[in-house]
């Protein structure tokens, strides 16, 4: 993969500006604050893509809350990995039994990772578990899972920025943009 030194040059179009994201995150935070008022909430961020969203969202929720981080292996990489099974690379640091859990995702497309994570987390007996995703790409969906809080429904394009990467690059862009095909076509 070849990326430009100025990452902005690899972006064909800004899909969601910094301001749009900021306003939406505030809106979701407000809804979550109202929905979980008086309850014990644990936000679980799925590394690495949801980190910026998690960091911004938690500061928009006006409730006492805990945060935790998880990471799961992704399909792909070496052929050895691709013949294996999804693995928890980083598990929760604290138990969630009896707690209200909100899983924070950057994007949901096929729903395969989310499906796996929900099954895994439900096995830890939380009081409730809901899903919050900044982006939803329904055109790619294989596993239909209700998403309780959605920031933006986006078209079927390869997007980067605000945590989303291609080859571990572009996560630090402040906006969500469509990657130029030249950036991923060899």
């Amino acid at each position, binding site marked *: 993969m070849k990326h430009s030194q100025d990452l902005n040059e690899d972006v064909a179009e800004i899909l969601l500006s910094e301001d749009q994201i900021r306003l939406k995150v505030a809106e979701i935070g407000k809804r979550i604050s109202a929905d979980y008022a008086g309850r014990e909430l644990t936000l679980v961020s799925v590394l690495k893509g949801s980190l910026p969203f998690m960091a911004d969202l938690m500061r928009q929720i006006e409730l006492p809350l805990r945060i935790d981080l998880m990471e799961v292996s*992704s*399909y*792909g*990489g070496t052929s050895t990995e*691709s*013949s*294996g*099974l*999804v693995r928890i690379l980083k598990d929760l640091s604290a138990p969630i039994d009896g707690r209200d859990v909100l899983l924070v995702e950057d994007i949901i*497309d*096929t729903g*395969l*990772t989310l*499906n*796996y994570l929900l099954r895994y987390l439900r096995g830890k007996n939380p009081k409730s578990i809901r899903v919050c995703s900044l982006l939803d790409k329904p*055109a*790619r*969906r*294989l*596993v*239909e899972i209700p998403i309780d809080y959605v920031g933006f429904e986006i078209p*079927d394009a*390869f997007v980067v920025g605000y945590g989303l990467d*291609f*080859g571990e690059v572009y996560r630090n862009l402040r906006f969500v943009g469509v990657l130029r095909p030249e950036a*991923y*076509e*060899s």
Partner: protein
Amino acid sequence: MSETGAPRDPQAGNAFAHASEAEFAHILDFYQVAWEYEPQVFPILWDLDGNVLESFAPDFFLPDLDLFVELTTLQQHLVRKKNRKVRRMRELYPNLRIKLFYARDFRALMLKYGRSALVSELSGALGQVGPHQNQDAGVEMAGSGGPAVGRPLDLSTPDSAALDTVGSHDRRSRGARRRAVRRAAAAYAPNSTAT
């Protein structure tokens, strides 16, 4: 005979019509989603005597999700034929959920998983498992540089030889396919009969 998946190595059986199907099975296995490969054949066209003229066998059934998935990584003129069959299937079996995965969807999936280099070899005619395996009957094989290996529809034997599964050869015997058609017809009563 259907194959039931997860957990298993889809390459071990070497039973897929197309390399993209094997890759898709790998992805489902990775995420521990149970799958069956071409478990059912659905009649979609009958003659006036009620004999099946045309049928459709979606590539995958995901039992836990109650979803059929059809992969189409072929060229556009073949995709149109698949689209027509999927439309027809949705009309006849409205309670079934089927997702059609186009070449662009598959390409995006590979891109997401960092396997974009595989796209060209998993798509179109290059992804075919072997030259003996035909595409839709009577249709030229995409990019093969030669005439189709497929056979024309034989209307004289509508319930067997003319069964035309979508986009792939069928590894089952005709008898097994007939039985699969009957099972599907019994299990999913269509809205309407022959047209």
